[in-house]
């Protein structure tokens, strides 16, 4: 009986996720961003042409940075509207009046958005690899590390999606965008923040340490420069980063569920 309930919940989450994905794909903004990413990869080729001996380096750096930034922008701007748009259009009431629980709605939205971003990243990655093939005329063994960097970028998107959804569960879309983007910036400076915490003493040190561990650590997920030089990524870092992204997303989504459960939707 319990397993029936579990599979029914899974089916409802899957349905919401699929609808979120379908809605996002229909959104023309998404297509425009893919086009922009492809254009940027084209620009990388152009820069590669005028750079001596560092064409591959430029293509990997510029291409992966574009994938990351465009993906983060998509994650933030779609993520913040997921809840508010449903409330504005009053479709949320229709959904929740059916046997769909609020937590299922939040989790379904999260999976729908991450699915969208995975597909989005796949096409942008294709652009990067085509650009690489164009400048190097062949693939190299070290290009495999570019795939790992792309995987880390997807992990980064998981966290950004979860954060956008968390903020949108209690805040306006504009403020959610500001909060998420601010955390993205701070998260990229997380190692510097921990460095500051190490040399700060007393209450300030405790506060800085707590802040450093609470904000998402995006710097460990950024291995773009490393793979651009063809340096390998340790297997343990892949494991830890996967674990970290999963745990941090779970934390943010649990927070979103807790808040959304209590939210007055009347």
């Amino acid at each position: 009986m319990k397993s029936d309930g579990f599979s029914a919940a899974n089916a409802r989450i899957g349905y919401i996720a699929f609808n979120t994905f379908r809605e996002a794909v229909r959104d023309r903004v998404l297509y425009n961003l893919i086009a922009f990413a492809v254009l940027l990869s084209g620009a990388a080729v152009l820069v590669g042409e005028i750079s001596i001996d560092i064409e591959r380096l430029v293509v990997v750096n510029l291409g992966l940075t574009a994938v990351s930034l465009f993906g983060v922008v998509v994650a933030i701007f779609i993520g913040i509207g997921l809840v508010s748009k449903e409330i504005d259009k009053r479709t949320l009431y229709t959904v929740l009046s059916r046997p769909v629980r609020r937590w299922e709605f939040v989790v379904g939205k999260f999976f729908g958005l991450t699915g969208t971003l995975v597909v989005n990243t796949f096409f942008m990655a294709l652009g990067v690899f085509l650009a690489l093939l164009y400048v190097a005329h062949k693939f190299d063994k070290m290009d495999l590390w570019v795939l790992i960097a792309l995987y880390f970028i997807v992990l980064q998107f998981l966290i950004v999606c979860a954060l956008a959804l968390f903020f949108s569960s209690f805040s306006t879309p504009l403020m959610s965008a500001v909060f998420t983007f601010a955390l993205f910036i701070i998260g990229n400076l997380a190692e510097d923040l921990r460095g500051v915490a190490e040399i700060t003493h007393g209450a300030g040190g405790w506060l800085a340490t707590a802040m450093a561990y609470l904000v998402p650590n995006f710097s460990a997920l950024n291995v773009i420069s490393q793979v651009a030089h063809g340096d390998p990524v340790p297997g343990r870092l892949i494991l830890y980063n996967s674990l970290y992204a999963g745990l941090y997303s779970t934390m943010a989504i649990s927070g979103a569920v807790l808040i959304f459960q209590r939210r007055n939707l009347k």
Partner: protein
Amino acid sequence: MRRVSRLNFVALALLLASMAGAVLTLRAIDREPRFSAAQEALYVSSPKVLRRLSLGYTGLLADIYWTRAVQYFGRQHHNGARDYRLLAPLLEVTTELDPRIFPAYEFGANFLAPQPPAGAGLPGSALALMKYGIEQNPNQWRLYYNLGFLYYTELKDYAKAADAFAQGAKLPVTNPFMPILAARMAQHAGEFDTARMLWTTTYESSKDPRIRQNAVEHLLALQVDEEVTQLEHQVEKYRDESGRLPGSMIDLERAGLIRGIPNDPKGHPYKLMADGRIEVQDPEKIYFITKGLPPGASPPQPPREVHPDTK
């Protein structure tokens, strides 16, 4: 209602468990050897390009680069590295973005010029950094002091050191030691008192704990160098008077040449060797000393810093 509270409990438990898990994972990630952030700094090593890219937020960017410079030096020092090639560009970028970030010049004067592992072994870069600092801040006595300090300690160019101290002494706001240092450079550059005055001024005028510790170690080394020189002079005097070398410190004391058995700054008595030389008991414990060492030994350097995580 019960279902909702159970759900809240599950969500809260999941939130706390994942938070704890994320912190533990992050600590594991920290222990993984990775590409250093400071190495990335060289991607944009041109300070002028960085200034344009900063969109006017040069202050914040300078602070970030300054933090990275200190972290880079600390990390390399901790790893016992002899290669500090990124220290100069990191300090150049920092000071180009914010020319009034004075600790960066002070750090450069103390750690760019000395030979590894105490520093980067780049006296030319240190000199260029000091001159740039003075060009940007002509009224800061501390920068003239740093320049004079560099000429004196690393380049041994006492005339230029005197000139730098004299220029700093003329400023409306200056340190009272500046004219004294300028005067001493002319006739007493090689004397212990001059070096002691310089390191004392460095200690008293700096807030950076690394620079202050470095100054303390140099002051202790100066004390040893001076005491060993004096003791060896007394040994010579004893030989001249008695026609033989003293057998122990007690012989010197009985001859009225010293009062009691002298100790080094770590509290250990100095050793009188059979050939009349004076040695410290434990040369590895007193850094930078040039005297009191066994024959052929080079001046001991401070040990690598121990990171809290690696204790």
